[in-house]
């Protein structure tokens, strides 16, 4: 495994961590991850009703 492999894997891991954190943060804030409005994000008017 060379340094570029490690860097790419780190980048992918960061992307996944960011995605998981984003989902968790939005869920905690009562927002959805569904894109078109789960019950929570719909309730807050983040999506089309």
């Amino acid at each position, binding site marked *: 495994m060379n340094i*570029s492999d490690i860097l*790419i894997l780190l980048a*992918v891991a960061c992307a996944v961590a960011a*995605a998981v954190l984003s*989902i968790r943060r939005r869920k905690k804030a009562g927002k959805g991850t*569904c894109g*078109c409005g*789960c019950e929570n994000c719909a*309730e807050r008017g983040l999506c*089309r009703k």
Partner: protein
Amino acid sequence: MKLSELKPGRSAVIEEVGGEGALRQHFLDMGVIPGTEVTVIKLAPMGDPMELRIHGYELTLRLSEAEKIGITPVDPKTAEAEKTPPRSQEHPGLGEEGRFHPKGSGDPLPDGTTLTFALVGNQNSGKTTLFNQLTGSNQHVGNFPGVTVDRKDGVIRGHSDTLVTDLPGIYSMSPYSAEELVSRDFVLKGHPKAIINIVDATNIERNLYLTMQLLEMNIPMVVALNMMDELRGNGGTVDVNVMEAMLGVPVVPISAAKNEGVDELIRHAIHVARYQEKPLQQDFCGVEDHGGAVHRALHAVSHLIEDHAKRAELPVRFSASKLIVGDPLLQEQLELDQNESEMLEHLVLQMEKERGMDRAASIADMRFAFIRKVCDASVIRPRESKERIRSEKLDRILTGRWTAIPFFILIMGAVFYLTFFLIGPFLQDLLQVGIDALSEAVQRGMEAVHVNESIQHLVLDGIFEGVGTVVSFLPIIMILFFFLSLLEDSGYIARVAFVMDKLLRRIGLSGRSIVPMLIGFGCTVPAVMSTRTLPSARDRRMTILLTPFMSCTAKMPIYGFFVSAFFPQYGWLIILGLYLLGILTGILVALLFRKTLFKGEAVPFVMELPNYRFPTVRNVFQLLWEKAKDFLRRAFTVILIATIAVWFLKSFDFRLNLVTDSHDSILAALAGLLAPLLSPVGLGDWRIVTSLICGFMAKESVVSVMNTLFGGGLLSIGSLTAACMLAFSLLYTPCVAAVAAIRREMGGKWALGVILWQCAVAWIAALIIRLIGMLF
């Protein structure tokens, strides 16, 4: 004579309103009361329902409901007779410092108290537009009664100690649909510090009916006269001073869409809330009106229940009028003893005898009588608004007897053609070129620095193939939402409900159910939520169970993926066929439900038809921006994680060794457990099973997972399996977001039922296709 017998273009005076219960109360609340003039505008293309004009607005009723309304035909009133010059008077100065208490004096609420406001008004009166102006938020607004189906909160710009709640539109405080209950409960139990009552100035008589009831709540209130620019533009106006004096609350003319008068409204609203300035006027019953029968009954009942109302923390006047009409919720809350209940009944019977009308009609008539007085004194009505004339011209075609359905098919056909075959694919190809170029650049870069082959596969076959394929569908989804937004904002969707009512009744639904169904072509989640505008639980449930059969945009990537691989020469035919298959299955399921789970008839079709309006560029693009943001967020969160997880599971075995053949992977073992269930319909390949399972998280991931698992070997499954896969993907369980929405509306058992039921329907449909395919 019955209203159902009145010919289009003819007018009549209502003599009696039949029916019973909530529907009759709804008729009365919408202004269908004895003594009111009504004009039949037209019948829907299939002869039912009918469109009426009453109190200056358009209402739709089925013939079976119109049969319950007794009338006497008359010549239509001339506009001249209605026109009364307003009296001018000194500005009462309500809700302002200086008139009732000098600046700095008075008895304000303690500093730090959050001033809570309820934004209340009729459906389609511009509440959400005003809410956006007040709070600076970007809520979606539409030109269809019932866009807001749940409450939303926001802080007024520049006033951090405020909280304004946008409530679903209601016609009265007698709840008729679920959304109306939300509003009533918030005003009654949420104890807002003040109410901002938004009144559509172009439809003032009907809007003031709700105002009368809000005033009875004895909560500080401001009336925002919205769309004043439109009223003035058509030669009408309102003498605000006179109206303010008669209503006893501040009245502020505004145009929410143009942000005119909103600052003044905020000043008044904050003032009445901070100083708790309650309405000066609550006693609308005239002492002289019809011998004062209603007046005496209302006052007698008010005294009778005063102690109970105080104990229950309910406004006395509001409780008295609701008790007289027999509101069961109020009766329960007030806990009257037997003597009091009997006394109440005697008082009401006496009122009915003296007034010559039943209790509900007497109270509604009393309110409309006061409204007429207010309007006669303060409103110059426009002769006929430009918007109305424009709407009538358009309606001659769009709801015309012979033209409505062809135009509906033409419009929807054009929307789908432009979305899926003209603009959408062009933009999709452009985006795909960009994604491919980026992918190639990344590949060259990784090869240049000798990145491990497995990691290259993860990045290129996993992330770029999976996420990239899904992202490339962004233009198509945006364009479909763009057109749906135009149709809704223009007011056309409401006409579709009017035109389609008779057709939908054949499958046990009301015309209003067409709206969630059409939204369902965009996304099932908002479609399920929009069923709240349907007034009966039966119709709501049945519509919710049918909307997932309408093919949502998230399934487009699946269709595009399979069609381009297997049926490139029949692309549009296959996609059109899938949409029709979804609709056909929905119809069959509806007919089945009608005979089993949901016996009975659809609820009455009593709906307001709004004028056509030009959709605002801001509104449409704001919606598209929100959709694009949400779609991309989903692609780079849920779908990214799912794609990487699938790549991991298909690349490693249970000992976490890299596998050379994905048949030995963890994923193959797990999906293999479910494969026997899908084998009879030709979908027993573990890779297909895996993609279908991932599709439950988000439909688009079916494509990304298949891309990851099959690589370039997709064609090996054969065109018959592809056809079965298309049908199964169309009909099987809705995604987790839609199931969550269904669970919220109907409960966990129903949500689970939907998952199992739709999988069964999809399985049967795929089996039929497989059997037919095997014949050839």
